[in-house]
């Protein structure tokens, strides 16, 4: 039997009791649902609420974002919602965990088969679709949509475009936003679950549209375009000196050819300029509406929780709707009533008596496990004391990696606060 650790010791309130109202409270961060149940987050209340249309899973690399996103999506689908999960992951982990061999830039229906109980997806009319972001293809599609065919060809052939569209920094985040906007515009799904790119910083995802906007709005762009604009004499006068310096240095470093490529790329970009900015802003707006829920995902490790803290602060600064924190891989003991200290003492006593080496080893194993469980609890408590309004859902550490639908279902149950079934 596994005991669900509750910090308050109070019994958990039942799932989905206060559904919509709780969501509305959460939408502004730290609302009713977040405080209810002394900080326990029930994700059924978020994912099954018809008002929730988008869930964004964010957090640092390696904390289980992809698994969390897939588990939530599967659970919502099996409870009757039509769900698409968007993952951005070069290692194709979602593909592995969902038993798919191929994920491309379009959503594909996932065969969820028989879930083994009466809550199978088919029974409740839900559907699960999954897709993996193809960053370059998404970028190409935007170019095609915003430029004439000739112009688009020029852009595709430009080496700077090729570098920018296939690189990871920034572009991936922006394209994830773009794809999310596209999926939402199609309005075919009740719920879109997004897994964010494995950024060096969890914040890159939020910053990407603004950075791109700043970039496209930037002085540099205008400087590079300046020679192409006849009649901009007054403007050139102002920037003239620095512009001369800029081109001189650039020519020196990258050569005339590259400078010409860069200049023409920037010129081509400008034709799509408005479209880019508008779409980035629309998606950003979309994310700040109450139909969106951000989930910050972390593991009980200092680095991951530090990133989670930054993210929580940023979301609240920007008025983004935070549903709570998912804490993955939390170690728990199955016999919490026996402390690490007592187990150690008992093991030492057995060593002295002799003859019970196996039991002594079992007790030491338990002591180690209690120590780790205590450490994880302390990590969570530290986070909670810094962010008392953020509700937390814990997923216990599993002995094995999640790589099938049953594994995702087990994670889904933990996210909804269901007691894990006895082994």
């Amino acid at each position: 039997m596994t005991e669900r650790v509750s910090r308050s010791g109070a019994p958990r309130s039942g799932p989905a009791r206060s559904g919509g109202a709780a969501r509305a409270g959460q939408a502004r961060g730290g609302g009713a649902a977040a405080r209810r149940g002394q900080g326990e987050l029930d994700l059924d209340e978020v994912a099954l609420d018809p008002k929730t249309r988008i869930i964004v899973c964010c957090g640092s690399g390696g904390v289980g974002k992809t698994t969390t996103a897939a588990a939530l999506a599967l659970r919502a689908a099996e409870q009757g919602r039509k769900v698409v999960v968007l993952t951005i992951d070069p290692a194709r982990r979602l593909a592995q965990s969902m038993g798919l061999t191929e994920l491309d830039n379009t959503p594909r229906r996932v065969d969820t088969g028989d879930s083994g109980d009466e809550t199978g997806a088919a029974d409740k009319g839900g559907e699960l679709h999954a897709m993996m972001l193809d960053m370059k293809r998404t970028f190409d599609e935007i170019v095609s949509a915003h430029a004439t065919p000739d112009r688009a060809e020029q852009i595709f052939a430009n080496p700077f475009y090729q570098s920018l569209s296939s690189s990871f920094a920034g572009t991936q985040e922006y394209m994830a936003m773009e794809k999310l906007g596209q999926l939402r515009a199609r309005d075919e799904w009740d719920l879109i679950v997004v897994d964010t790119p494995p950024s060096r910083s969890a914040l890159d995802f939020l910053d990407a549209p603004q950075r791109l906007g700043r970039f496209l709005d930037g002085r540099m762009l205008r400087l590079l375009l300046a020679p192409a604009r006849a009649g901009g004499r007054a403007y050139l006068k102002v920037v003239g000196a620095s512009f001369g310096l800029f081109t001189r240095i650039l020519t020196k470093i990258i050569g005339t050819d590259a400078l010409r490529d860069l200049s023409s790329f920037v010129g081509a970009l400008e034709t799509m300029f408005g479209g880019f900015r508008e779409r980035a802003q629309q998606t950003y707006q979309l994310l700040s509406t109450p139909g969106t829920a951000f989930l910050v995902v972390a593991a009980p490790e200092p680095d991951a929780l530090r990133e989670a803290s930054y993210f929580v602060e940023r979301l609240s600064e920007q008025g983004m709707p935070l549903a709570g924190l998912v804490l993955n891989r939390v170690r728990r003991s199955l016999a919490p009533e026996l402390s690490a200290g007592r187990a150690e003492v008992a093991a030492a006593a057995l060593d002295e008596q002799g003859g019970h080496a196996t039991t002594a080893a079992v007790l030491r194993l338990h002591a180690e496990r209690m120590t780790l469980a205590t450490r994880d609890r302390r990590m969570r408590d530290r986070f909670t004391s810094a962010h008392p309004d953020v509700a937390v859902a814990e997923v216990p550490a599993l002995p094995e990696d999640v790589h099938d639908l049953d594994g995702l279902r087990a994670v889904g149950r933990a996210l909804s606060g269901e007691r894990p079934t006895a082994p």
Partner: protein
Amino acid sequence: MSHPAPVWPQARLHVVTGKGGTGKTTAAAALALALAADGRRTLLVEVEGRQGLAQLFDTPPLPYQERRIAVAPDGGEVRALAVDPEEALLEYLEMFYGLKRAGRALRRMGAVDFATTIAPGMRDVLLTGKVKEAVTRVEQGHRVYDAVVLDAPPTGRIVRFLNVTAEVAGLARVGPIKAQSEGVMAVLRSTQTAVHVVTLLEEMPVQESVDAIAELRACGLPVGAVLVNMTRPPRLPEPALLAAAAGTVDAGELAAGLAAAGLAASLAGPLAAETVEHAQRWALEDENRAAVAALGLLTYELPFLSEPVDLGGLYALAERLREQGVGAQA
């Protein structure tokens, strides 16, 4: 099995990568400490602007400047550097073109940010270029650093990050950037460099390591060792462990043992379940250990520390690397 001879005993640049969450920064720091023993000097470099080294060593954020961050047991030292692409570009302009003030003007105009945004390959050349400069730096006829350890981007991005010539080839067909990238690449592909991969004995990190190693090899980048992080010894004698992995714990012995220790009999069930989980985890780790061994690379194990890693923990990890032969003088 026939494998290429390990390349890295001659290496002076140690690139450390790994899947997110495997502890690559910790492993890089432990490696830098281990290599600094016997009075040597190493440089530990980070390039992702995360200030992970400052957090690990519990120091204020690192500037763009090489600072002593730790002392190795017998007189060696570890210096640390957080490379920032803007600073690296300014330094580059000053060093090669004497453009100090112009560089600052460019930064004020946002040119540096612009250049590194529009051409990420160029940013990577600046970062790896700075690393190469440290590796090859000579003062008064001596190498400044015996070894440079780079806390590199994670496995998903490592090949693109290191394969700088491919990244800038299309952008700059001639000129100094191209020459610069070729110089960097020559060092990265030489026996001076070893790319080490940090993994855990879990399925996905091992799979990503295997994939990354194949990609690195395909690009001609020299793969060094596999650093297996957070390993734990089995807590049970082998026969009991094997039985527990199969789901069986000797209930009679456990009941007798608990009674002898004066503990409640009701603990037997949960303790048996914990033992089975431990044994199953051990069995999975063993499978993953075999998958790592099949790579035919030098493999070093770093033990799991029950407390979050601090400086003391780093010394302990470095010592374990030393015991396994890391940093032994040829």
